[in-house]
């Protein structure tokens, strides 16, 4: 940072520390991070402690509301024990929603990858002069209300909606299929529909960054295009596939509205529904807190993996 010409000029400014070779007072740049750090501390990190305090707290029997235990020495595991026994027992309150959540998220994420990879490949390599147009069309769902799109699916999937009408006129269905009658397949497709752009984004970024000379090298060394894809493109996009799987599935774990709008029966309930339903009943709030804690712990590994891999990618990008 220190340049020879800067030093004599900097001496004139009273607060400079040019003698030590720095152009700014040491506190200058860190001070800019103070508002953001304080905000995150108060409204992002501290709430996690509140989740712990409520989970390990007690429930007031008269006021029928949670009493958080702020001091870790007074922590009481009875609510967490209750939660675990309802997860492990086959007729427990939370086992079915958890199983549904994992099954739906896995199914939807796989669909997202199968749809997202070819589309990202197309965007990066084959869209040619229409790339700008396709990018705009691809980004459109990011600023179009999710609720509006789900409302539209709701009407498209009605018994007399366009989906059934088209499938019947094509002869695929003989009578309307009850898409909205609590079918897991509808929830899975709905989730895939809602979150597929999150899969395309990292895949596109990575595929677009692969230099064409790598592919030419593959072809020059005698690989068929398929082999070039399998030996060059696919390994180079492996990190992006993993990042896409994480970033696409994370929000699905907290999704409760897609299920509610497209199915809303007990055999499609997800963990988000269990949490939200308990949050509105004061006496059950601490159960919701315990479930959020379970969810955080379950998702911690993919979150940390994602953060580490993007951090590494960013450092490589700078180097």
């Amino acid at each position, binding site marked *: 940072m220190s340049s020879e010409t800067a030093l004599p000029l900097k001496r004139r400014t009273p607060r400079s520390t040019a003698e030590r070779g720095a152009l700014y007072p040491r506190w200058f740049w860190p001070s*800019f*991070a103070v508002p953001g750090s304080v905000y995150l501390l108060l409204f992002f990190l501290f*709430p996690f402690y509140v989740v712990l305090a409520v989970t390990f707290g007690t429930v007031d029997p008269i006021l029928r509301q949670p009493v958080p235990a702020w001091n870790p020495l007074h922590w009481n595991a009875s609510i967490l024990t209750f939660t675990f026994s309802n997860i492990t027992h086959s007729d427990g309150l939370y086992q079915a929603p958890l199983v549904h959540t994992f099954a739906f998220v896995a199914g939807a994420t796989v669909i997202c990858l199968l749809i997202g990879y070819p589309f990202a490949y197309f965007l990066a390599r084959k869209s040619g002069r229409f790339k700008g147009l396709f990018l705009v069309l691809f980004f459109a769902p990011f600023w179009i209300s999710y609720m509006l799109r789900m409302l539209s699916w709701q009407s498209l999937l009605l018994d007399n909606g366009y989906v059934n009408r088209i499938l019947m006129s094509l002869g695929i269905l003989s009578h309307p299929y009850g898409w909205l009658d609590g079918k897991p397949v509808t929830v899975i497709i709905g989730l895939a529909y809602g979150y597929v752009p999150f899969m395309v984004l990292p895949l596109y970024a990575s595929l677009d960054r692969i230099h064409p000379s790598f592919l030419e090298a593959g072809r020059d060394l005698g690989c068929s295009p398929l082999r070039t894809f399998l030996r060059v493109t696919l390994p180079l996009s492996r990190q992006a596939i993993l990042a896409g799987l994480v970033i696409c599935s994370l929000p699905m774990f907290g999704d409760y509205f897609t299920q509610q709008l497209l199915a809303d029966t007990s055999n499609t309930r997800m963990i988000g529904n269990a949490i939200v339903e308990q949050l509105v009943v004061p006496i059950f709030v601490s159960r919701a807190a315990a479930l959020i804690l379970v969810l955080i712990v379950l998702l911690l590994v993919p979150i940390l993996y994602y953060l580490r891999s993007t951090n590494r990618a960013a450092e490589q990008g700078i180097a």
Partner: protein
Amino acid sequence: MSAQAREEFAPRVVPPPKPSRARELLQNPWGRTRFLWVFAIAYVIWTLFPVANAVLFSFNKARSLAQWQGFSLRWYVTDPDNSVLHDPALGHAILQSLKLATLTACIAVPIGVAFALALHRWRTRTARTANFTMMFSFVTPELILAVSLFLLLINAFKTIGLGTTAQLIGLVVLALAYPVVIVRARLLSLGSSYEEAALDLGASPVRMLGRVTLPLLGPSILASGAVVFALTLDDFVIVDQLSRDAGDQTVSMAIYGAARTGPTPAANAIGTIMLTASTIIIAIAFVVYRRTVRRREGIEAMRGLPA
């Protein structure tokens, strides 16, 4: 000799046998782009057809969302009870959404830009921790953010409580990382030469920020403002969980409520109004950004978004 005759005497060139379509496809499924073109167009139709359908049915004459009965503005203005103009709840929801999105952008963008400026120069262990926390908040599922804030506000910060302020606090947590990521990408591509020149010419750090750095960052600050605005305008989970009563209802909550009880095209109508608003905001930001920043960098900034 006529052309036809010349052709007759010319040696016949037998073309090599063409490989069958199926074999060709197996050997080279990605070489032929036709499949990918069809796939991409199908993808775009799949993602955007429901939007077109929703917009279309907001103009439906009848109450149905599945049977098209003809064009009318009934659900926007003319229906005396249920239209956007005459249903006070819907008008209020639009105002609440716009209010929250504007305030969130006004709070999250300055904090985020300052954070990005700090992290760009300040590379210590503390800085890395701050950055890690920021990125952690970026990928945490919204439901976890919403529920933990809910617990915070009913147990610890009881004076704030639930309501519009709570919604605003939550939306800023959700949006904070976007300006950081976008502005940091721009800072990286700008490099340090402009700032060094300013310092060489005798500017103080504050003057350098005001005269050089911030003007250069202008387009990306504007872009991040537009992204935050569009993101929070349509947010659902945080505003839903942190609302207190009907007065805090936003457009996404109104559409959700309608969809659960018995939607009329009025829900499509407010959705269409918001869609128009956020498209205009994004389009303005995009045009201004493109005018000031080279095309390539624009794409770089969009790439920065998911990371």
